[in-house]
């Protein structure tokens, strides 16, 4: 066991972890943050995307010990109380989610994308989100949501 200190959604957490434990299981099982989903075992689907020090990472490809000293934002940490984050709001308004399983990953990947590129073109959005898979929406409305969030200055 190794001690790690990670600030998750603004809260400082000090926990014992096995060195081989993945960040996603640290979040889901140790911290009971079940909003970060696991959709594959090959780092292909992006359902487990979180922000680590402000940048999107697939939390299935990061060890919990690698997050030591870092700041993690999961989907649970995005809204301000009742008020959804502008990216969440845009996904809602553009009907960019159906079953919802990939949604936390897409939302956080979008937050990260818009920080890097506040007004991406459609092609830039499609390429930036290539690492996140959705089987329900056909991506059409996800792209519209990212455009809307960009317009809203998210």
């Amino acid at each position, binding site marked *: 066991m190794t001690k790690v200190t990670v600030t998750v959604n603004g809260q400082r957490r000090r926990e014992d972890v096995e060195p081989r434990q993945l960040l996603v299981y640290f979040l889901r099982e140790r911290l009971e943050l*079940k909003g970060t*989903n696991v*959709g594959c075992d*090959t780092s292909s689907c992006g359902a487990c995307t979180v922000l680590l020090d402000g940048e999107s990472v697939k939390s299935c490809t990061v060890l919990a010990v690698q997050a030591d000293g870092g700041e993690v934002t999961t989907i649970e940490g995005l809204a301000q109380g009742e008020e959804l984050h502008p990216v969440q709001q845009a996904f809602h308004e553009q009907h960019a989610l159906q*079953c919802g399983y990939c949604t936390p990953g897409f939302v956080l990947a979008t937050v990260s994308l818009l920080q890097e590129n506040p007004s991406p073109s459609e092609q830039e959005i499609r390429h930036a989100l290539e690492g996140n898979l959705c*089987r329900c929406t056909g991506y059409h409305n996800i792209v519209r949501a990212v455009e809307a969030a960009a317009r809203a200055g998210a």
Partner: protein
Amino acid sequence: MSILGNRVLRVEDPRFLRGEGRYLEGMPLEGALSVTFVRSPVGHARVTSVDTSAAAALPNVQVFTGADVDAPPFGPPPYWNIDPKMVRPLVATDVVRFAGEIVAVVVSEDRVTGADAAELVMVDYDPLPVVLTVEDAATDEVLLFPDAGTNVAARGGAEELDENLFDGCEVVVSDTVWSTRVAACPLEPRSAAAVIGDDGRLTYWGTSQTPHTDKMIVAGMLGFDPGQVRVVSQDVGGGFGAKMLEVEGVLVAWLARKLGRPVRWTESRSENMLALLQGRAQRLEFTLGGNRDGQVLAYRLEILADAGAYPILGAFLPVLTGLMACGVYAIPKAEAQSSSVVTNTTATTSMRGAGRPEAAQAIERAMDLFAAEIGMDPAEVRRKNFIAKGSFPHTTPTGATYDSGDHEGALDLLLRSAGYDELREEQRRRRAEGGPIELGIGLSSYVEISNPVGETEFGEIEITEDGGAILRTGSFSHGQGHETTFAMIAAERLGLPVERVTVIKGDTDAIPKGAGTFGSKSTQIGGVAGRLAAEAVAEQARSLAGDYLEASVTDVVLDPALGRFHVVGAPDPSLSWADLASRAAADGRLGELTIAQEFQAPPTFPFGAHLAVVEVDTETGKVELRRHVAVDDAGTLINPLVADGQVHGGVAFGVGQALFEEVVYGEDGYPLTGTFAGYAFPSAAELPSYERVEMVTPTPANELGVKGIGESGTVGATPAVHNAVLDALAPHGVRHVELPCNGENVWKALREAKA
């Protein structure tokens, strides 16, 4: 103004957006043991020994083999007419018939230990010849079930083919296309959990589209009285037809009873790609005859379907394909014949479209080949053969009776919206200029069948003491948005705001009956059942309001805009739902305002037309989808926002099959596409935005005028894209490309055409 037809944002969204989706894997279950399945790594073998001793020696680990499981095998319902000898034991005993079949079950305190223990279960396999193709299976040289004496699991359609079918046709074209085996790939892998309560009742949680059906199967297989079983589906992360109760779920329930402890299982993605039932996998041999003026006279479709190792719904679906063989055309003579054979692969089942994409793929390729043969534009050939708008209901020679349609209208709208003439002009120009990138334009006109077996659905409205309503539906939503759409349907009739109607689904204790969600039937039977219940409650409430307003019931009206009851012509005094409910509660009469209804209806036939524009690099074979224009008519739309989403997702599924997706097995029967890294379903980068064009032709089949829309996009998209690729390659003499039209298959087709 009615709320129906408005783009209402989904009420279920916030919990998903906040990461509060109630997926089963995240459900707390105190003291639950973890289940791990040991699965066969080979496609076909005799199991000579299963040594569990090393695994069972680990602390707190138990291992069960086929010999331990005292439950009957898992098989299809008798009305599918599938050979009853081809059933699946819950755990294999003497033979494994596909890679992924369960040979032992490990129960442990946690998942990590379970994985370690599963590695220690030693199974000896004595290889048997592996049958991977339908053609090999059909020879019956290697039998998967020797007792059955054949690999044919089911037959359907015409008993005898008419050898004179094409007499008198000036032109006859034919080809054989393979509807690729595809994987559903719901983003949420499957989970199951079960517990026996202190009262002896079984509670089973599954990631299933059909909790009520699952309840009857679990009860039947494990010998429970159905009243002793509760089945719950919470939020389910996509299903696409593949998420139903399977052997894993039955074993989880069996273990809960056997061990007297809660148990749970969640599969990994690799396990899901091995064991979740798959779709399509039909060999479609078609022949079409007609005259040089473009008139189609006769059509034949012969289907050889891959049922996989243990035939279930996929063995039955060719019957639907045959039923829908004629598509949107009035063909004087047509016949379809099918057989489904078993192979050493994962079994097949319904998957977005389920039998109808295959029918559309065959007839739409046939129409394009016919058009090319007689030198006519594909749009023109279609127009000459459509079922006339005024001739519905229309019965096809293969036995489908279409309720309504305007197939020519759909194509005309599509061609106008897409700018067909301009596209053809651009194609002519580019062909004249030459160059390695060819432009292809593909059409498909389609019809599909929703609520295909004419099922019944349950809906109940309960007015609560605060004047809100609960709608209990036997339908289920795993992404389709019932919590919004169904609420709209009831709210509109009751005169309540949508947010005052709470939709409850997916729990067999809360809802007495249900058909669940399959075959695009939710709104047309479940929505209508909810509507009828709302209607009955509104009527009952009028009578109650009459008592309170001291008026005759015939004089009381419900103002649908305000949700208030008053005497006709006198808006004051009036009673709101809250007034009525609280008074009724005080009088012990609130129960009068809970009414259940069931609604049964025949199938309906959504239709439409799709146009795809592709660019094909003739040097590399790479295909790029540039545009996809879709006209999908599913009758009246309750919530166009949700309907758009259904079409988008359907189109992506259909494009995926046309260009990218195929489950591929290695020689030993182990899949080469067993992960998301190996199975290529498209990301946002491979797809364009779609151009959806709305068209609404209400059906007379139900009072809402609605048909199903969950699958139509898929049915229309695959043939449009396939035809577009072939249109692009026409100048190179290519008339056949295997699906998926990926670089490899296109390049091969180009090379063969050159040779």
